[in-house]
């Protein structure tokens, strides 16, 4: 399983006076099992890109190959795309609607036309994958849960569709630091257990540095740069020019004159010890 996006363009309101290019010649590849971080300031075109990967928006031109199938071709059915690619929107807890957690999580699998047994099995699996206790929450109303639990249920609703590519748009927005960590841990867990491709959009550079194998930077609908977190976060000036910051620890290490791109606190402590003891 891999993703190959080639020369993807999207123009809003084509042919109207309000015409606006939202994506311009975006090309990138994602290998099997990778975690990809997409960064860019609000309005840079990140969300538009995500919605293309899930078939919610149609490309004006270009192709998106997922597992060898070009999903921009007219013959490809939506159900097939959604079996392959799951998309978790920002503040996903606002999409909960069923009377019980189990029923809400079952909504996606049901739409895929699975049998009752399959659905039940997937629901159980997904709920425990996101770190909740099935027996405790299955019959409760999703609306009585805490903020963090609600978000977990919403993510389970997409995980239960067993997508080979799981896309999460700002999965930690609005959470307190503890819940924030829990949700990141849960995403890692899901990634490791299912071996999916995970695409993560975040404003939190620290999270991206910690989680991603590959980072894609978007600005004004264009792909600005792409590479490992090491590579991307070594380009502090470029990131600043598109309104992005470095991870706080990276920034700090730059300031005290450590020229390597430090991405974690552990690494920073080691480098500072070396620096002083030299």
């Amino acid at each position: 399983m891999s993703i190959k996006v080639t020369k993807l363009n999207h123009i809003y309101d084509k042919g109207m006076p309000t015409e606006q290019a939202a994506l311009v010649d975006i090309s990138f590849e994602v290998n099997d099992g990778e975690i990809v971080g997409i960064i860019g300031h609000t309005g840079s075109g990140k969300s538009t890109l995500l919605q293309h990967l899930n078939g919610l928006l149609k490309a004006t031109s270009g192709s998106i190959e997922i597992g060898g199938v070009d999903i921009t071709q007219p013959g490809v059915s939506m159900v097939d795309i959604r079996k392959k690619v799951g998309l978790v929107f920002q503040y996903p807890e606002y999409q909960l609607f069923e009377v019980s957690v189990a029923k809400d999580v079952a909504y996606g699998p049901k739409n895929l036309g699975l049998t009752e047994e399959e659905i039940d099995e997937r629901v159980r699996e997904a709920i425990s994958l996101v770190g909740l206790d099935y027996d405790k929450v299955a019959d409760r109303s999703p609306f009585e849960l805490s903020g963090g639990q609600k978000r977990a249920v919403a993510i389970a609703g997409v995980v239960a569709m067993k997508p080979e590519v799981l896309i999460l748009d700002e999965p930690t927005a609005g959470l307190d630091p503890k819940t924030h960590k829990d949700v990141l841990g849960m995403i890692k867990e899901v990634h490791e257990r299912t071996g999916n491709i995970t695409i993560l959009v975040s404003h939190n550079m620290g999270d991206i540095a910690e989680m991603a194998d590959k980072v894609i930077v978007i600005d004004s609908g264009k792909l600005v740069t792409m590479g490992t977190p090491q590579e991307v976060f070594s380009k502090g000036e470029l990131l600043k020019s598109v309104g992005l910051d470095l991870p706080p620890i990276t920034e700090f290490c730059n300031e005290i004159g450590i020229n390597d791109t430090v991405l974690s606190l552990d690494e920073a402590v080691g480098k500072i010890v070396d620096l002083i003891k030299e």
Partner: protein
Amino acid sequence: MEKIITIDNLIFEYAHSEEHSRQLALNDVNLDIYAGSFTAIIGKNGSGKSTLAKNLNGLLIPTSGVVYVDGYDTADDDTIWEIRQRAGMVFQNPDNQLVSSIVEDDVAFGPENLGVEPAEIRRRVDKALEDVNMGKYKNKAPHLLSGGQKQRIAIAGVVAMKPDIIIFDEPTAMLDPKGRKEIMKIIAELHEEGITVILITHFMEEVIDADRVIIMHDGNVLLDGTPEEVFSKADIIKGANLEVPLMVELGDRLRAQGIPVPKGIIKEEEMVKAICQLKSQN
């Protein structure tokens, strides 16, 4: 310094009608807030920090105990509007606190409710919009603005009421980094102009500029003091499932490795200085 808010033995319970159960949100809180100060209140979700904030302007009334704002008791119905004019509040969700579909009319909403003269409202609205750098958006519709811009409008709406105190209830929780920086800058400016600021947040980076930090845990005040004092007790903070600012964490780790950076450093500039000094000594 003069006390502007006094909280005595404040207990607050939420009543759940369906189950007849009561949930204790604040358990005997005693605090004084001084005029002109910048107080940050931190705590995780459910620690009681938001409940405390809503008790400070009579949106919630103590189950027992008293809260005085500028000498007025928040439980007294007759003076509740005096309190709310003096203690303005900015909420978390930038969308759900704007009333009008035109920016300047929204900013005018508070002063209109207070019965201020039309010409004076006009002056206050223009001034407040300038204060938050949104003057040129005064005829725009809020839904066309970014989250940070909407939050600036919400602040202008409170500023136009000429409050002595502004309570910010997680004002940056739903904003992107750019919006967050804009709001923090405006809060610092308001504080400099003499407004008493109470900032409820769960972002550690936002509290290091405050002159007092209060950490709430399970409905109680866990720690209270200057940022240096509070963050020197990292073990207590971590015990309450909270994080400490990055520089505090880094300082602790470095000391554990035998690097003698001084305790009590919370700001990045200070840490940079300390490390450069140590480097030059060797």
